[in-house]
């Protein structure tokens, strides 16, 4: 870096210097690296602080207070967590969040991978079909949730209509969301429907990066289709699978819109996820501290899920250029 000081330049001013203009203080400042670094980082750091760190910090702080809407709380330590520990509704939400995430993720990945493998073949209208596949994912969640709300309606379900009035196979409407277990499965089905495209398209991208020569070599060695899938496809898409699964688990675990729009956590709190329960307690019921405590209690689950999918699925030494164990 040029270390010419402004004073030295000013001294040389009368002489005609073609290549160098007089260095003003602002130019000097902008040439000073620490300042430049601070200036360039400031917007990003500022935005993250204001919109991420502060709300997160405030949320964690609120979890240790008894703040309600309209009333500044006082520090109560772990009181909120102690109450939640003995609250069957909270434990039910923990159970359902884990169950919902687990089953929906398995469903999404099984069907998504299957769909990706199908789409990876050559077929007529390939691009069109790939675009259509994305529809469930690009439709705003609230809209698809409302569609499912109608599909699952106790009185006006299209599925019940087909079975009762058109086919005559049943005499009563199907109970989708009026009792606990059917409601849970209905929500999981809606979540799987919505999540498949994301998984399928991401895995399709992964599948297309696998060099065809690997399959050719394996075929020359007389491999079966299953062997090619097991020993080529699966290891090759494992890194992207890990990333996609991490995202999918986070999105599913923190899901809110589907549950809130379809059941609002009902019947009798059996389908509350931690996110919907946190909202219910925090905003409509006004118990901000308790709502924040529920939201904070999601963090360990998310960290664990992230670490699990990251380390269990992605850490293969050969992928980093070393020998496998």
């Amino acid at each position: 870096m040029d270390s010419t000081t402004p004073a030295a330049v000013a001294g040389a001013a009368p002489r005609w210097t073609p290549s160098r203009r007089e260095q003003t203080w602002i130019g000097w400042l902008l040439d000073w690296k620490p300042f430049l670094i601070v200036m360039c980082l400031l917007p990003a750091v500022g935005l993250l602080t204001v919109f991420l760190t502060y709300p997160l910090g405030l949320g964690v702080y609120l979890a240790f207070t008894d703040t309600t809407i309209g009333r500044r709380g006082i520090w109560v330590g772990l009181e909120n967590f102690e109450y939640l520990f003995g609250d069957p509704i909270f434990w039910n939400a923990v159970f359902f969040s884990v169950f919902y995430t687990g089953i929906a993720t398995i469903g999404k990945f099984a069907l998504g991978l299957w769909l990706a493998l199908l789409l990876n073949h050559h077929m007529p209208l390939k691009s069109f079909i790939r675009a259509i596949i994305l529809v469930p994912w690009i439709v705003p969640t609230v809209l698809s949730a409302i569609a499912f709300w109608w599909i699952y309606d106790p009185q006006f379900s299209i599925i019940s209509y087909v079975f009762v009035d058109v086919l005559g196979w049943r005499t009563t409407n199907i109970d989708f969301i009026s009792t606990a277990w059917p409601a849970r499965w209905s929500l999981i089905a809606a979540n799987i429907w919505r999540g498949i495209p994301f998984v399928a398209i991401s895995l399709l991208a992964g599948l297309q990066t696998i060099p065809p020569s690997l399959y050719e070599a394996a075929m020359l060695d007389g491999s079966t289709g299953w062997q090619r899938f097991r020993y080529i496809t699966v290891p090759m898409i494992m890194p992207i699978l890990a990333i996609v699964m991490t995202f999918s688990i986070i999105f599913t675990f923190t899901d809110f819109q589907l549950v809130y729009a379809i059941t609002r956590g009902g019947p009798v709190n059996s389908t509350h996820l931690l996110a919907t329960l946190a909202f219910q307690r925090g905003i409509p019921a006004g118990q901000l501290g308790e709502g924040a405590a529920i939201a904070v209690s999601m963090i360990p689950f998310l960290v664990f899920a992230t670490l699990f999918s990251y380390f269990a699925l992605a850490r293969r030494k050969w992928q980093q250029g070393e020998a496998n164990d």
Partner: protein
Amino acid sequence: MANIITTRRGTLMLGASAAAAAALGASPGSAQIQRAAVTPPSWPIESGATLRMIRPVRFVQPDEEVFRANCARFTQQTGVQVRVDFVGWEDITQQTAVTANTGAGPDIIIGFNEAPHIYTDKLVELSDVAEYLGARYGGWLPMAKRYGTRHGTNTWIGVPFGASGGPLVWRKSAVNEVGFTTPPDDHAGFLDLCRKLKAANKPPGFALGNAVGDGNGFANWLVWSHNGFLVDPEGRVAINSPETIAALEYLKDLYATFIPGTIAWGDISNNRAYAAQELWLTSNGVSLYFALKNDPATAPIAEDTEHTLMPKGKAAASPMAGLTLNAMLFRHSRFPNAAKALIAFLMESEQYDPWLQANLGYWSQPLANYAESAVWKGDPKVAIFRDVMKSDYWIGYKGPISQASAAANAEYIMVQMCASVASGQATPQAAAREAERRAQRHFRAR
């Protein structure tokens, strides 16, 4: 959100009493409203006063038009600019909280139900406004007094503007078909009616899902009509009582007659099922009737629809707690006199009666003399809503109105207690204990 700024300053002397100004010239539509010649308190309007108010959005278009016109007339007569913002129902609680906590924002908020009781220390006492209006218009109705005053005192912290209730809505043809002229007023008779309706394949149904209005309305009725209550007058949780158990035992029989799926019902579900002629008896606000009446396809259903109060059961009167509009004036307002004058002005018959009529019966008056309003003399099926605020019940009955009673309502404690029994998940005893446990959390001393 919509807003309007009515600007007409300096047309009248600043400092003139708004209420006195209002007394000039009554419109013909309000001629039948009796009022006493009471001298309004003097509220010398502050120089350069402007007011901001927020209130919930309208049910019907004329509500907003008349409300704005009333505020514009206030501007005309006093020179005080009034800006009114109409806010979505789901947002008004949060906006009130922000206003109260930051000490900035609107001077007046017309909120719901308990709001003034939560922010009492941030509000200007409105006893002078309320006492004046009460003396002038035949007194405040019981529910209005309950929501307007601090628990157990005569200190007014809010001025209720009206309430909407949810009585029994039923199909005359169906009820007559099974041998009743109107739904009976006792529990056994009502159960008998519901059983016969079910047998006639014209089932009744009440929301037992997470429906803030309908679900709480039904659960409260069930418990109150058996003389049970959530908290006692001192605010101690009292839901786990023999009365509650009896109510839940009764519900087991009643629920068996319901159309399937009511445990998943939201606030809109019974409206849809009723309009589709799958549901023949339910409880709802007047909106259902108007929706049916205004659509030519469903007008015959409206023709066949009747409203009556929910059965009173063991209670002295039919238990019903409506949704109340409750106006409050914040201490941070720089123009409290102008604000008081505006509140009083809006409740004067020249303004209030046209507004009441514009609302077609969606809102019912808090002041006794407005029972004579023309709105209650039009459609006889709407007349029942005239007495909504005569009810001596409120959300959180029999305790003080507070954040805790509001939270218990928003948390569906009563509804879920009923739903868990109806669905067979819990015995009445276990459900009452669970409700008690949850309520104690909200009503704990802080």
